[in-house]
């Protein structure tokens, strides 16, 4: 028995090494890397979901609490324009300020508001009023501005003579278009159905 090296055997060794390297490279590329990428992707998803569960421990009671909280924001940013309620309030305040409402006209609907997320929108209305004194208009506007819901009075004009003034003011009211929290999860607000 002997070991005899020659040029051919050296070439064969070189080729065998190259074949092994190629096997390693293509084996990883075709069989390991795709599943590795998928697994990493998945594990980062799982990590994100775990941190979600950590920060919002799942519980029906807590969800119901959150939904109840979200109801309190509806006092100042209702879901949908709810102008019927706003109009009732406007009339109450006008009465208190001794101002007669003549007409209320909507000028724009669901207009975007600068500087806030796009699911918050505004309607603009113009309101014609009549009163004995301009100070009544001012107290009405002051009452509107003191409201919890934001009433933005952007224009005001009035004219008239002592004892009788006609006025007109432009109003903006804001609301949320995103959808109702309770609709997200009916179990949070009503009896679950089988």
């Amino acid at each position: 028995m002997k070991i005899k090296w020659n040029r051919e055997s050296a070439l064969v060794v070189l080729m065998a090494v190259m074949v092994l390297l190629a096997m390693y490279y293509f084996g990883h590329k075709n069989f390991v890397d795709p599943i590795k990428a998928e697994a990493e992707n998945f594990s980062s998803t799982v990590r994100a979901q775990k941190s979600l569960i950590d920060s919002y421990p799942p519980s029906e009671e807590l969800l119901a609490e959150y939904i109840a909280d979200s109801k309190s924001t509806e006092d100042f940013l209702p879901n949908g324009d709810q102008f019927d309620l706003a109009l009732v309030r406007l009339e109450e305040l006008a009465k208190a300020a001794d101002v007669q409402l003549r007409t209320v006209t909507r000028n724009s609907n669901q207009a975007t508001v600068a500087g806030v997320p796009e699911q918050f929108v505004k309607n603009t209305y113009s309101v014609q009023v009549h009163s004995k004194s301009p100070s009544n208009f001012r107290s009405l506007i002051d009452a509107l501005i003191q409201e919890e819901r934001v009433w933005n009075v952007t224009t005001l004009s009035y004219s008239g003579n002592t004892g009788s003034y006609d006025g007109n003011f432009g109003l903006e009211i804001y609301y949320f278009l995103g959808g109702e929290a309770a609709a997200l999860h009916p179990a949070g607000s009503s009896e679950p159905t089988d």
Partner: protein
Amino acid sequence: MINVNFFRKEAKNILPLILLVIFLLGAGAIAAQIYFSRAEHEAALKHDQAWLDNNTENLELSREMMQVDQWISQAVDVQNTLRKDQFPMNRLTENLASLIPDEDERVVSFQVSETSEQVSMVLVKTRTDEALAIIRDLEAQPYVDKVQFLNAEQQDQATQEFSFQFIIELNLQALAEEGAE
């Protein structure tokens, strides 16, 4: 003398055999390494998948809670922004009215608009010296940039009363800053 030994064997070259064995071992090692590392990733994938399957309901709940929570904090932020950007019509009109004595008697027309940043006003039954005092008072306000005089018309010769029309140019930033204080 010729010495021929017919039974002597030529020593065999075992190099090809050794190389073949090494090659097969190497190939086997690589195949095993690939197999195990693939199996490891597959196991991790399956584990994560099972975790997700088991926690679907919890995740759904948590996601809803997050959604509602985000709505709440967003609504509060938006409310603050809207409140900050609200045009202080009450303050402005009160201030202007307080600068005009006998406002009910004098002001027959008043217009203010946030977009034009102007107030236009018509005063009647006002003497020129009174009008001058009113304009000076208005110009002294930090939120008034300028008072433009448009027109004066004599109403009553006996009392020297005129009607005046003028435009007040507003500085909304100063108005907002005044409100912030």
